[in-house]
């Protein structure tokens, strides 16, 4: 169409325009090929070098395999306990410099930590062990922490003592030393109250007939009456200690100041 009606010659500005546009196009194409990353288009429409870069990051969580190289005792308890599906770093936190930075990773506010999983919240499946905070028998208002009674590495095994959880299971005392009922009772106090008055669901021991006390302890000891925590306590007492403790509590109402 253009050729048919086109007059004699093309004006010089048209050539200059074409030259200018051609130059710009060439510049554009050259820039494009220069600036294209060499690894682009290798596997697809992306920079192939990005993949090794993404794969190169240093992992933060190291997992139990790393912790157990030093913490063999805790690991021995943890790896067969109910918390074996809970990785160490979940509760202890992550620390890339551990142990070189000298920091220890022992949780302090265990109520906040443990209730993260174990508080009864709508939506949690029933098989998950859960407590209602207001109803759970915390032993003592001044020492209300989960790890006071529960061994965090194996929470099914209750740790009667407030000693740091190190996985040691208290066996029946065989030392043959004289029996000290108040000292024994101090272990019970955490759940049954300083004066044995009972705390929330945990029954009062003060004034309880010693025969009943002994019978119940034997039921726990044999497992006929199921209670993980009481079973441990019952097994930790020798027969003599059991009798003395029973008598101690029987007498307690008369003597307790309250």
């Amino acid at each position, binding site marked *: 169409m253009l050729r048919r009606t086109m007059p004699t010659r093309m004006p010089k500005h048209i050539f200059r325009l074409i030259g200018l546009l051609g130059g710009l196009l060439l510049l554009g194409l050259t820039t494009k090929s220069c600036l294209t990353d060499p690894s682009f288009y290798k596997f697809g429409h992306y*920079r192939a070098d990005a993949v*090794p870069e993404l794969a190169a990051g240093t992992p933060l969580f190291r997992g139990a395999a790393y912790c157990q190289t030093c913490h063999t005792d805790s690991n021995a308890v943890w790896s067969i306990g109910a918390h074996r599906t809970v990785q160490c770093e979940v509760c202890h936190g992550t620390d890339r410099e551990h142990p070189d930075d000298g920091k220890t990773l022992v949780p302090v506010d265990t109520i906040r930590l443990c209730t993260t*999983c174990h508080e009864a919240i*709508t939506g949690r*499946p029933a098989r998950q062990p859960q407590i209602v905070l207001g109803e759970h028998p915390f032993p003592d208002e001044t020492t209300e922490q989960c790890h006071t009674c529960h061994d965090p590495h194996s929470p099914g095994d209750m740790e009667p003592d407030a000693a740091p959880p190190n996985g040691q299971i208290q066996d029946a005392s065989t030392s043959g030393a004289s029996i000290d009922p108040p000292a024994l009772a101090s272990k019970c106090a955490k759940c049954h109250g300083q004066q044995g008055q009972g705390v929330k669901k945990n029954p009062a021991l003060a004034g309880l007939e010693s025969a009943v006390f002994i019978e119940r302890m034997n039921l726990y000891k044999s497992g006929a009456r199921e209670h993980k925590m009481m079973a441990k306590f019952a097994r930790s007492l020798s027969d003599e200690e059991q009798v003395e403790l029973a008598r101690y509590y029987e007498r307690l109402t008369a003597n307790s100041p309250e």
Partner: protein
Amino acid sequence: MKNDKNTSGRREFLCTTGKALAGLGVIAGGGCLPGLVGAATASFPTPDYDWTKHRWAYGIDATKCIGCLRCVEACKAENNVSADAHHFRTWVERYVYLEGEDRARVDSHADPQNIAASGSESEYRFDNRYKDAKVTKAFFVPKMCNHCTHPACVHVCPVGATFRAEDGVVLIDHDYCIGCRYCVQACPYGARFFLEEEGVSDKCTWCYHRITKGLQPACVEVCPTKARIFGDLNDSSSPVSEFIRDNPVQVLKPESGNGPMCFYVGIDKDVS
């Protein structure tokens, strides 16, 4: 005759040229061959990890999730994600049906009410707002990038900064992204977000830096109830292969056509 001579001369020229080119071709091909063979055997992306040998997938058993949110916090720690309530590579939703209601009430730990309960924008808890209500059904659903086989986000990226790797993981090249956020719009699952500080888009990468080293993603590692499952579909005994084989599984928003690779068990009609 003149014509014959020209013709035969031309023919001779073409023959010689043709032979020469063929010879060059053989040499060139032979030269290339070692290069090609070399390329085929080089392990990519790392010498210890060959992405052509894996086909990753993820499983979520919502019947096991206890909403403890350890996964959310672990992911943020592992991947350096902003410690606030607006940037999540993974999150958990709670669905609660109250008596007399047909539709679930949904909330996540990013809800201002739950943030107030946890006391912090970087530590996550679900509150107990339904404790006095009559609840008929309630469960938790973990969510994350579904690493789709036909990702809408990859489709719309104007520069090729996000892509699907050969092992099935959808990744983002933070050095190439221009920060237009078209991918954030395109994802039907809300899995992507924008990192204002870095000016690029971000999302779950199935902890690519971990899985290429034989580790599990951080969220799977820390889940205390095995609600999160990860593995290689090429390995029929991997946890995810067994999960898919042993359960009727479903995906989120199948009508989107994205072909997600996160397989759910235990979600119900209102989960979207």
